[in-house]
């Protein structure tokens, strides 16, 4: 019986947040703490000829100043190796904690000033004299691979990090495209985005000289991964002497996955000065140094036969990875991108070809969706465009091409042309429901009318699929991941039957303290108040790979389920002993073991107490009720859904207003519908942001001209309507909770729906395509060209 699963239990973590008692890294103050401020490169590409720190060092309150000469041999690694098509290893130049010899993007750390106060540190930064020799810059991926382009790294010819392809042989795909009866072709840029978690990154390192131990407080999505990378690959520290703590984190969206140079640097500095040191990013630094997302330049073609069936699909993109390889940067345009090219469709031939490129820009990595939004945009934007070109209804075009429903149990999973095998899906179901919510027929009537009234209404569809629940270690290992992507889950039953759960997942808004407690309480049949969820501290939690890729419940939840199974299994032995019955005659339900067919039973609490006071106890059985497990998924999970956007375009100004947004998602089983809806809402808002508002822009010198909230536009409350959401449920067949993941679905689905809606509104004026962000000027230009 479910007392909690499937119910919108209010979040227990909210109490501290709504009263101002959240504990974010920058809230902490340690005794003797110093403050670190960076001298950052004002140039996108420059030789550092000399750094004069004399005046800065003499500034009152300054404790120390470091440059690349002091710690340039330490560099942060890339976590995923992708090889060239010819088998050569990708280019992976060092990414030093402070620039050595050369700065490669505006904002790169050049020197670190440590002082007694932030005031002194900031003032002294202005006294550090750096002698730069400016070099030619390149910020655009396509330009960077041209012969003669500025070289970001000396030993990376043409700035190419690697080239990559996935899918069917290119000549077969090319032949099918050439003989297709209709080909839709689009060239576009999937623009660069700045993640903008509202909490800026913040790190405090505290070195204890007597114990030779480090504590790093960090705003990260994955404390254990940071410890692993920093200890094993950067500073060479013994892991058991390093504790990483990540209390409350104010949003991540991917940007707080990565091991950043600043994180390792404060840890190193703390030992050098023998005192705690804090660095908190300001918003300008966040724009310049938090890893960006997207930035693909793409040509994509889809071939159709006379009946509207897709015969082939090919994609070629240059992926801009910025100046250095961030932790997951190389996986995003490859294994998290090319593998999604099947979409929900039966396309028989697919080829995805990617060139990854260095430029003089901020490193690019996973941002909510990571590779999957890029592919979904290509697919879904092509589908609506093809429908317009072929004068077919975009809904019908999708139906013709949908993979038929399969549950992964009675019907096998669906083998794609791009390596993955989908677990379960029913794509018609979410489409049907979304159309019902919309009233499609009525909409088309309204649209006709709107055109005669001078308002331009448009509708856009997106029937997305994504791969999350990242990821089977053996699979990702064979693809170049330098870490496993399992998760740990530790359940400690206290003697009184209260339960402490330690998870390697990390909540930074997702509500794990509530949703995890829901399924733990239901599985053990105990009140939810008897369950506590602990995360975010490497000294408390055995190990963990953290939270990203919509993986927490599917992978982290499954690890906890494994431990719960072990608890119940051992509990049964104790119960059998106490009840003087055979284990096989017992059943466990609602928090007690009962001898089948009798009223003889023992409660979970009594069994727990017995486990810790084992006076009358099964022979040979260890005391205690405490299990730790690791869960390595056997497959990704594949949420899907239908998103529909309705927009109105102001004919005079080109301004697009989002009138309605309908989302029917299928994320498998749902533990807490309220939280899942919230994840979809937030995801959709970020997807809408990409379609209409957001975009990082560099000028010809590599200066970011959108480096503040005065220029970088993100959705505000008055840019958005209420979202209309509903769900279908196709359980995941391969994890114990049947869950798929909901964190990224909204973002992945929303962007193409909105872009398609704009096109639907204006295509009757002869407009073929429009680039994101779809700003008023772009619409106006399209309408007037």
């Amino acid at each position, binding site marked *: 019986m479910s007392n909690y699963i499937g119910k919108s239990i209010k979040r227990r973590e909210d109490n501290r947040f709504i009263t101002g008692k959240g504990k974010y890294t920058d809230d902490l103050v340690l005794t003797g703490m110093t403050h670190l401020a960076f001298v950052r490169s004002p140039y996108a590409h420059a030789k550092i000829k000399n750094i004069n720190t004399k005046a800065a060092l003499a500034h009152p309150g300054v404790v120390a100043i470091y440059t690349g000469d002091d710690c340039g041999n330490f560099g942060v690694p890339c976590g995923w190796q992708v090889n060239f098509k010819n088998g050569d290893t990708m280019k992976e130049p060092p990414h030093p904690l402070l620039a050595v010899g050369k700065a490669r993007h505006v904002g790169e750390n050049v020197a670190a000033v440590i002082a007694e106060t*932030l*005031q002194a540190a*900031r*003032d002294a930064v*202005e006294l550090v004299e750096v002698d730069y020799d400016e070099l030619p810059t390149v910020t655009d991926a396509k330009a960077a691979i041209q012969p003669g382009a500025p070289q970001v790294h000396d030993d990376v010819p043409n700035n190419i990090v690697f080239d990559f392809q996935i899918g069917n042989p290119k000549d077969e795909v090319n032949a099918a495209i050439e003989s297709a009866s209709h080909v839709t072709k689009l060239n576009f840029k999937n623009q660069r985005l700045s993640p903008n978690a509202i909490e800026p990154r913040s790190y405090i390192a505290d070195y204890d000289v007597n114990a030779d131990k480090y504590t790093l407080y960090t705003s990260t999505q994955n404390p254990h991964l940071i410890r692993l990378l920093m200890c094993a690959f950067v500073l060479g520290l013994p892991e058991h002497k390093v504790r990483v703590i990540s209390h409350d984190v104010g949003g991540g969206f991917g940007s707080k996955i990565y091991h950043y140079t600043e994180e390792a640097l404060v840890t190193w500095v703390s030992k050098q000065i023998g005192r705690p040191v804090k660095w908190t990013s*300001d918003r*300008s630094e966040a724009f310049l140094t938090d890893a960006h997302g997207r930035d693909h330049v793409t040509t994509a073609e889809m071939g159709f036969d006379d009946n509207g069936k897709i015969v082939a699909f090919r994609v070629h993109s240059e992926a801009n990875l910025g100046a250095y390889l961030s932790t997951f940067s190389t996986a995003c345009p490859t294994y998290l991108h090319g593998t999604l090219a099947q979409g929900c469709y039966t396309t028989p031939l697919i080829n995805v070809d990617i060139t990854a490129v260095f430029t003089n820009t901020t490193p690019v990595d996973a941002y909510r969706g990571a590779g999957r939004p890029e592919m979904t945009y290509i697919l879904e934007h092509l589908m609506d465009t093809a429908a317009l070109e072929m004068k077919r209804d975009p809904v019908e075009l999708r139906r013709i091409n949908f993979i038929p429903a399969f549950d992964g149990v009675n019907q096998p999973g669906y083998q794609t042309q791009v390596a993955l095998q989908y677990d379960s899906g029913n794509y018609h179901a979410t489409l049907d429901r979304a159309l019902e919510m919309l009233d499609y027929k009525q909409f088309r009537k309204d649209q006709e009318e709107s055109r005669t009234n001078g308002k331009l209404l448009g509708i856009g569809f997106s029937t997305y699929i994504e791969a999350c629940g990242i990821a089977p270690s053996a699979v990702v290992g064979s693809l170049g991941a330098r870490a496993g992507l399992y998760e740990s889950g530790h359940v400690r039953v206290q003697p009184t039957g209260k339960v402490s759960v330690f998870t390697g997942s990390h909540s930074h808004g997702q509500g794990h303290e509530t949703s995890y407690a829901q399924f733990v309480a239901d599985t053990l049949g105990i009140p939810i108040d008897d369950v506590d969820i602990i995360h975010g501290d490497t000294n408390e939690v055995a190990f963990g790979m953290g939270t990203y890729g919509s993986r927490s419940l599917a992978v982290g939840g499954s690890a906890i389920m494994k431990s719960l199974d072990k608890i119940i299994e051992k509990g049964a032995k104790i119960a059998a002993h106490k009840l003087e019955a055979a284990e096989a005659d017992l059943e466990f339900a609602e928090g007690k073991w009962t001898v089948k067919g009798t009223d003889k039973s023992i409660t979970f609490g009594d069994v727990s107490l017995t486990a810790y006071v084992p006076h009358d106890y099964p022979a040979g059985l260890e005391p205690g009720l405490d299990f730790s497990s690791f869960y390595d998924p056997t497959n990704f999970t594949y949420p899907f859904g239908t998103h529909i956007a309705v927009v109105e375009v102001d004919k*005079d*100004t080109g*301004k697009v207003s989002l009138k309605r947004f309908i989302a029917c998602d299928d994320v498998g089983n749902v533990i807490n519908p309220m939280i899942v809806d919230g994840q979809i809402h937030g995801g959709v808002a970020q997807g809408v942001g990409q379609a209409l*508002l957001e975009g990082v*822009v560099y000028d010809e010198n590599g200066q970011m*001209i*959108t480096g503040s*909230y*005065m*220029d*970088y*536009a*993100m959705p505000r409350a008055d*840019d958005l309507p209420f979202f209309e959401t509903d769900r279908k449920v196709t359980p995941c067949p391969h994890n114990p909770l049947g869950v798929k993941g909901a964190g990224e679905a909204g973002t992945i689905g929303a962007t193409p729906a909105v872009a398609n809606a704009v096109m639907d509104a204006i295509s009757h004026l002869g407009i073929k395509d429009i680039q994101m962000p779809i*700003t*008023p*000027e772009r619409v*106006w*230009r399209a309408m007037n060209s």
Partner: protein
Amino acid sequence: MIPAKFEYIKASSVSEALALLDKHGDDAQLIAGGHSLVPAMKLRLNQPGTVIDIGKIPGLNSIKEDGDDLVIGANCTHHQIATSPIVKQKLNVLAQTAKSIGDIQVRNKGTIGGSLAHADPAADYPAVILASDAKIEVEGINGKRSISGSDFFQGIYATALGSHEMIIAIRIPKASNGVYLKFSHPASRFAVVGCAAIKNGAGISIGLTGVADHAYRASAVERAYDGDAKAASEHAVDGVAVMSDNFASSEYRSHLAKVFTERALSALG
């Protein structure tokens, strides 16, 4: 973020503020609400040695009727202006303008005097200041003077205000028939284009902000207007060097200036 070091002095009267300005010269800056100055100081784009706080000087935050004019104290906040019954009744276009500035928190703290002295080319007030023939009343150590809008706004962050002068009040003729319409920048919410239109008897007056390096009076539109808003608005940027930025090119901004001029004219009663 933290500003470079400075000395802070709170002035308790206009004469004290002026004496301090005189003493500290160009190294001093006045602060009222601080919503333009403080961010610039934190970003270290502005590093005054002395900051003189005029925010609590008595008498600078009143709104009064004086014959055909309203006299708005320099320290009136945008919110105060937006919600003032007198302004809404006698000069609604100004209330409308004030309400369109920033967000409620900014309106609660930012002042009209501060905004005008800062002279952001995309600020909202200048359009209505120009369209209404308002006068900026300023005072310096050598006395008071009154500056017309068209003389006051001179360029990006540049005004006719002397470095030893401060704004005391804004004197604006009442106008019952006026409108301010704005195309907001999606990030900053400043005006990409803001148009104030006022009708007085048979004549109309138009002020445009956001379009050029400073707000201007669209006299070509005023001359051309004979009841046909569309035709007249075609002259919105006649003779004007239109700004261009990442969000709006000069071509598009020119187009918006025309659209908003037409809309504002059409919205006049």
